């Protein structure tokens, strides 16, 4: 049996009300954004937080949940994101050093828009199943970028989730996977550009909905399952509305997606999105529960997973802070000016 040993998400305490604060600055219709995106608030990284710091925190808690697993037993560390602090120098090197997993470890950073995290999960599962490594660490996260005034600015948030994959002490066994990929230019960022570009409404039907539903249906077919066979489902959450709509299209109920539906208070954490939702589900899942997960990354592709929760889940759920508890713990709200400063959207004079 192979699958997740433990997992941990790292939500952040700083928030902003996008509809009120951001729409006010750019003269947009706040109510229309609120209704259209189903986003009440979103997380914001502090100036001293980035993908690497969030990954270290998530990984440390995941190790704690693994009953104090020796980090030296990790044979690989893969971090998926589109906001790696360095263009050249893997984020995983810093994270591996910080958690004490160096030097005998394979390390790589992944990039595939918002599904880079599930890519890392997919590959680590493969390594573990092939018995190349005993344990492997997969992290998905981002400090998402959205240009000032762009529709993305209302949803881009920050967070990360870390998963240790292994063949022993598994809390969620992997039953089936599927990947679905095409060349669909719905969202991209060219080299040296600070902010991504997107195709507006083109990001919907031919991109998100086509890829998520196609991957999901292939997964149903592969596994001979139907929506009613699952206790929980989680999808990529670019806003509150898309995952809700895609779940209805596939035949899932609101009850099945509620626990992992974090976007309304977290925002879109890009590569951390569906992985953080999965983490929130595993915080409350019971032995025997099946979880259906489909990520989405622009460009475009989806990774699908079917997890089956094992008896061991109850032993690890309280060993580290739970995702929703962290989200609800003393949030601090920013005004747009402070948000713009923290996200380095204000151009300062060069120091001489």
């Amino acid at each position: 049996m192979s699958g997740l040993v433990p997992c941990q998400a790292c939500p952040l305490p700083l928030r902003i009300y996008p509809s009120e604060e951001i729409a006010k600055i750019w003269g947009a219709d706040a109510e229309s954004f609120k209704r259209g995106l189903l986003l009440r608030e979103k997380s914001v990284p502090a100036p001293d937080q980035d993908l690497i710091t969030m990954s270290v925190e998530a990984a440390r808690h995941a190790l704690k949940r693994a009953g104090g697993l020796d980090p030296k037993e990790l044979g690989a560390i893969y971090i998926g994101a589109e906001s790696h602090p360095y263009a050249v120098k893997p984020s995983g090197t810093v994270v591996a050093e910080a958690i004490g997993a160096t030097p005998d470890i394979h390390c790589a950073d992944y990039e595939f828009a918002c599904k880079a995290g599930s890519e890392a999960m997919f590959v680590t599962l493969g390594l573990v199943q092939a018995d190349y490594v005993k344990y492997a660490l997969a992290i998905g996260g981002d400090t998402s970028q959205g240009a000032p005034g762009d529709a993305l600015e209302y949803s881009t948030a920050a967070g990360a989730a870390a998963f240790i994959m292994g063949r022993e002490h598994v809390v969620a066994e992997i039953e089936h996977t599927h990947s679905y990929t095409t060349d669909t230019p719905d969202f991209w960022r060219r080299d040296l550009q600070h902010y991504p570009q997107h195709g507006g409404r083109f990001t919907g039907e031919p991109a998100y909905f086509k890829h998520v539903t196609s991957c999901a249906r292939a997964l149903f077919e592969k596994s001979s399952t139907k929506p009613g066979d699952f206790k929980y489902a989680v999808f990529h959450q670019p806003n509150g509305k898309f995952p809700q709509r895609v779940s209805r299209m596939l035949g899932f109920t609101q009850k099945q997606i509620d626990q992992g539906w974090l976007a309304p208070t977290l925002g879109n954490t890009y590569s951390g999105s569906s992985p953080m939702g999965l983490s929130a589900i595993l915080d409350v899942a019971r032995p025997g529960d099946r979880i259906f997960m489909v990520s989405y990354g622009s460009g475009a592709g989806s990774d699908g997973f079917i997890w089956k929760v094992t008896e061991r889940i109850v032993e690890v759920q309280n060993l580290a802070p739970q995702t929703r508890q962290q989200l609800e713990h003393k949030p601090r709200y920013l005004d747009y000016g402070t948000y713009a400063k923290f996200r380095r959207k204000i151009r300062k004079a060069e120091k001489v």
Partner: protein
Amino acid sequence: MITARYWREMPQRYRYEAGKCVKCGYVAFPPRLICPVCKAREFQTVTLANTGKIETFTVIRVAPSDFEDEVPYAMAVIKLDDGVQVTAQVVDVDLDELKIGDRVRIEFRRISQDGEAGVIFYGYKFVPA
């Protein structure tokens, strides 16, 4: 900070590794070559406790150039649960509510960077426990 020095200090900055004198038990953080108590030269590597309480603190309003954008911020002396005292920033906190005796825990954060094109320096700060 030069890159080579940052690299040498990673064990203490990243993993909070201290040196415990094998002869008298004194814990040196950052690690030392010679024990200031008994002058012994043999140390065992130990990891510091990751929680503690604020012994005293001050709020920095005029900061060194690397930290200008962060003002106002708190610098505190923290007594860790293993008795070791460290000086560090306390973040994610309302400065008006911060007080001596508050419980805090360690978090991995960015400390500074060598300009927009240089190395990013990571290390420890404290947040409310």
